[in-house]
């Protein structure tokens, strides 16, 4: 085979490869919105369900004597909703949204400080004999 033929064959192959690559790219583009829409949600749902199981087993191991502190501390940590409030207060374009965010920061902070402090107060009282 002479070098010219070889070059032509190579060129044909390369063109075919390019077409295939183009098609693959187009396909990927078509799939992308779907993947973006579905995948993160499924990921979050997985995390959510696993966390439910972790919560289930961890909470059953809590001693009944400490059920009041449990309630107070879960109250405090559920106020981690403050991260959403912080983001919106700091970066929202809409002033209305910032006001809502600001109020949410206040309420959640009442809970965070109040919840942890009252839990600490309660736990400090539980003492052993003697």
């Amino acid at each position, binding site marked *: 085979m002479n070098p010219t033929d070889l070059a032509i064959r190579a060129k044909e192959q390369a063109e075919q490869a390019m077409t295939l690559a183009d098609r693959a790219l187009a396909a990927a583009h078509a799939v992308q919105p779907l993947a973006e829409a579905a995948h993160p949600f499924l990921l979050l749902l997985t995390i959510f369900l696993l966390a439910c199981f972790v919560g289930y087993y961890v909470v059953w191991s809590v001693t009944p004597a400490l*059920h009041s502190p449990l309630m107070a501390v879960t109250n405090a940590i559920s106020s981690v909703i403050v991260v959403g409030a912080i983001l919106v207060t700091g970066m929202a374009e809409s002033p209305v949204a910032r006001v809502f965010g600001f109020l949410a920061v206040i309420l*959640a902070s009442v809970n965070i400080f109040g919840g942890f402090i009252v839990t600490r107060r309660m736990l400090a009282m539980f003492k052993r004999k003697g």
Partner: protein
Amino acid sequence: METISTLAYLIASVLFILALRGLSHPETSRQGNLFGMIGMAIAVVATLFHSGIDGGGFALIIAGIAIGGGIGTVLARRIQMTSLPQLVAFFHSLVGMAAVLVAAAAFYAPESFGIGTQGHIQPSSLVEMTLGLAIGAVTFSGSLIAFAKLDGRMSGAPILFRNQHWLNLGLGILLLVLAIAFISTGNALLFWLIALLSFGLGFLLIVPIGGADMPVVVSMLNSYSGWAAAGIGFTIGNLLLIVTGALVGASGAILSYIMCKGMNRSIINVLLGGFGTDPAAAAAGGGSAGPARPVKAGSAEDAAYIMKNAQKIIIVPGYGMAVAQAQQVVREMADLLKKEGAEVSYAIHPVAGRMPGHMNVLLAEANVPYDEVHELEEINPEFAEADVAYVIGANDVTNPAAKTDKSSAIYGMPILDVEKAKTVFFVKRGMASGYAGVENELFFRDNTMMLFGDAKKVTQQIVQSLQK
């Protein structure tokens, strides 16, 4: 930056799990609480470093944290331990309201969370937003009612009216219709209608539930506050919120289950409310209809004399002890009896008081060592060996009718076997029946002595007699 904040959220999630894990024992619990605080600090600081936050916003955030933190600190430091249930209910309402506000903020500024632009939010995000909003709003108004009932700002008696449950069902269906309409249109008016309706529903769901069922209600609202947080977590795509919401939701659900089991009632039965208000059941259980049966009433001196000679004494505290603030003087009595050589322990029913573990906290406050305080299953076999059971402000949880009388409203409820003790003292204001409206058979037994009066005063008198 994105990676660092995700990592910080992951660490915070693990610390929160460890905070709950620590509560498996009093000794590890204090460290657990510290883990929780550190986790929260990490989460907040990592969020504050987000590149999109501008200067004005930053100042606003710090101001908000300072205001809220100040209020929270003062509240938590000043609260009396007997008022703990209402404080917790109040805190739940704040989580609910925060969820509503964040949902509203996300609705008006979806670009902050990358879920679309105003008026064009992804439908999946609208679904999650609706869930967070509705659950948050129900948590808010429901918890406010629970707070008002626990704090005595409104009567603890169930509020019942005709077709109540049908009204709630109708409103529930209407809520569903509004939610579907909102998700398909993204209309602002519908958003606020859903909020309003959910507020109303939360209110209506809790008013028919009576005071002594509050342990279940508070636990359930605890659970709701978790699910609301998780709903918001899905809306704004935040891993930490989702994990925490799931933990809290599961925790509240388990506590509700334990409380219901402690009363042998289904959660549906509790939620439908009106327990203990059925006049027919009260009459059938003896009630006030029958002729007065004789009871043995004793004086504090009699009780002191018998207890002085007792070897083994079990104290059974109930809500009455909390109301009378008698925990301190009960401990004093126990100390004196221990000096006389008696063995003193405490028996706690799962639903004693107004929130799970309420009695344990009160006894701990009065410096009662936690290893003297026992749960129902642990201590029940010991009543047979006890010389004295000192029941202070507890009634339904000691009623043997729960074991024998199939027609009783409390049949099947696990009870403390105080009847097996040689002598039973009941400290009570009068002969009124307990929350369930069932008369306690134990009052009429030969080995029972009623000590009529305020729990604190009676116990004080016993202390004085013991000191003589």
